[in-house]
């Protein structure tokens, strides 16, 4: 079971030392190079402040992609979740279990409490960019070593999958 690195957001102007910023830039460049090969060196993802400093526009809570906010009701939409289950079985189940067990990628149990709805939907539709930019995905990649493929989900697919994940996490 992979540990997810907690995200601490600090405002970059609190640490506005010139030297520190240049270190950040260098680290970010190294970091980007590492991504090309699908592997990342250990030193590059340990400090969220550095990552954020080098990439201030990235919002680690929302991720990056077309979903800014997602309307989620307190109750489960069963029909949507069932459609999501179908998408899961064709495009996701080869690598993800619905339990906590890691297969190729991490198990899905608890995923909706660890990540926001926009983050999840952005990640599954804008995969390559998120792998490049997101510190938690970076950490995950070090564990799995397989870059998650972009399965070319439609917006509807993504939303349905999210509902299926909610169901899997016990939402009634």
């Amino acid at each position, binding site marked *: 079971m992979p540990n997810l690195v907690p995200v601490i957001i600090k405002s970059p102007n609190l640490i506005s030392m010139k030297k520190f910023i240049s270190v950040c830039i260098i680290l970010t460049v190294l970091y980007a190079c590492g991504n090309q090969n699908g592997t990342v060196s250990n030193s590059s993802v340990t400090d969220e402040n550095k990552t954020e400093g080098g990439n201030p526009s990235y919002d680690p809570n929302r991720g990056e992609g077309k979903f800014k906010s997602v309307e989620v009701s307190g109750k489960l939409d069963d029909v949507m979740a069932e459609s999501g289950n179908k998408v899961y*079985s064709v*495009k996701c189940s*080869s690598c993800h279990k619905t339990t906590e067990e890691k297969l190729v990628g991490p198990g899905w149990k608890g995923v909706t409490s660890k990540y926001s709805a926009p983050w999840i939907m952005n990640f599954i539709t804008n995969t390559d960019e998120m792998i490049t930019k997101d510190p938690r995905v970076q950490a995950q990649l070090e564990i799995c070593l397989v870059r998650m493929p*972009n399965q070319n989900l439609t917006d509807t697919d993504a939303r349905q999958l999210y509902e299926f994940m909610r169901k899997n996490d016990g939402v009634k």
Partner: protein
Amino acid sequence: MQKTKYNTIAMASFALLLGMLSCKPKNAGNAVSADAAAKAYVAPGKYDEYYNFVSGGFSGQMAVYGLPSGRLLRVIPAFSVDPEKGYGYSEETKPMLNTSHGFVPWDDLHHPEMSQTNGEIDGRWVFGNANNTPRVARIDLTTFRTTEIIELPNSAGNHSSPFITENTEYVVAGTRFSVPPDNVNGDVPINTYKQNFKGTISFISVDKADGKMDIAFQIQCPGVNFDLSHAGKGKSHGWFFFSCYNTEQSNTLLEVNASQNDKDFIMAVNWKKAEEYLKAGKGRKQSVKYASNRYDEKTHTATSTIKTEVIVLDSKELKDICYMIPCPKSPHGCDIDPTGEYIVGSGKLAALIPVFSFDKMIKAIAAKDYIGDYQGIPVIKYESALYGEVKKPGLGPLHTEFDGKGNAYTSFFVSSEVVKWNIKDLKVLDRASTYYSVGHLCIPGGDSKKPSPKYLIAYNKITKDRFLPTGPELAQSAQLYDISGDKMQLILDFPTIGEPHYAQAVQADVIRKNSLKFYKLEENANKYVSKGEGTTKVVREGNKVHVYMTAIRSHFSPDNIEGIKLGDEVYFHVTNLEQDWDTPHGFAVKGAVNAELLIMPGETQTLKWVPERIGMFPMYCTDFCSALHQEMQGYVRVSPAGSNVPLTFSLGTNLPKAGPEVKK
């Protein structure tokens, strides 16, 4: 350094030598100049400006190069099996190579021709001809795959093909060998050529929407050799022109016997008229056998249908379809300029290039300005159709392309050169040496209404000392010339696959934007698709075992199969579950007397395997797919016939006694 020096000296002396041989002296500008490398240079990561589709000749395939870099981008299997891609080996693609003779694994592709709309290349399809067992292939330029192959009855050696009309209404196919028609007994003495042999040209219709080909009609012509052809365009749209040789009708030692006549012919065919006759029911139905093979992009499966009838129009009875224009000495190229007015014949044994005028030809036909007939086909008086002759252009003219600026470029095989000349005044403007013995030429869009005359490529038959030696067999070569200025400038040599004959090129944008990235899983209608690992299974039907398998980075499901018995035929139906660009998986199993599968994302392909011994057979992914590619493997256990090992399949289930170190 030494080599560069040697090459420069060799080139310079060769240029000098050719300069002395040809009528017009060469200047130093013909040698490779210093800026040549910069002109052909495409920086790493940058795209080429043009796609170049080059015939693979006796490889049977079509190669795709980028220009100006000359980088090989892809080899598209067309008429020959390609184990690298599983083409002709997978169950889905085997029917593509079916013919009335059965499965034919090889052919000889000579001429690519791209589809056109309004006389301009539209980037939808590229056609290719099979010169041995007569066929035409259609390659889809969204997938860069051969999507259809049609066989041609009453034909032998489909050389004069697959040239098209300006809206791709038809693809033509003129037989190089005349033969007795398929519906009569061909068991006749060979030296009855004159009585029994016929030359057939086929008009293959192309569906506007989906490109599907059918033989619309054939025209039975006298027994001669049809060599090349091109459609009229603009004002001459509605006509097709075919070069003919062996009008002597010789059946032996053609080298001598087919070179007797001072003039052979360019046959002008009024295909609009032929359409009228067809509509009026003037054709006769003839029973034949030919294969029509189509690949379905949704089922990822080819189907071969044997068709049994064609409609034949007789050129002798239906007087105003065909006309012969005398053309000096065994014409090869038969090329129409972008305006549609000028028809350039390249008599390969002639010392001049005749240029015919479409307008004059029409007038001559109206005035019945004939000098007689050839086996019932009127022969127009040479001078009455002639616009003029290019005098002493070089030796052995073969083929002409156009720049759309009033100039023509003709290749000369014997004198190894490209000659640029002006169509209006028929004056030679420039010469450039080729290394060596050039066949066809290509200017992007050079046989369309709208050429893009930045480059010219010469496709050479002989390479000799141009590249590092590789034993007796050498790569053939293409040479790229910058033709943006008044003088042609050689800027690059690049080796080709098989033998390059004709080629076509087009601005990259015409094709690039339509390129498919993957097949959508939702649309996969293969009979044996597995949509998700949950649907994978192994099913026995008698001695046939169907393995419904999936591939994703980086495992197969299932990856352990037991209960296969000697005498079984195993079909691995592998679905690639990836849905992203450039994520193919391969599949191979030990001992298969077959090739691999290369399965594109979202696609299902099937490998047939008949194990011939008992034991353990590994299978694995052949196309490096991820960091754990080397883990993408599995086992198939083969037991003796009659064994009672049950048929089982699994993924991720190690048996309890697998070993003490296995813990979860």
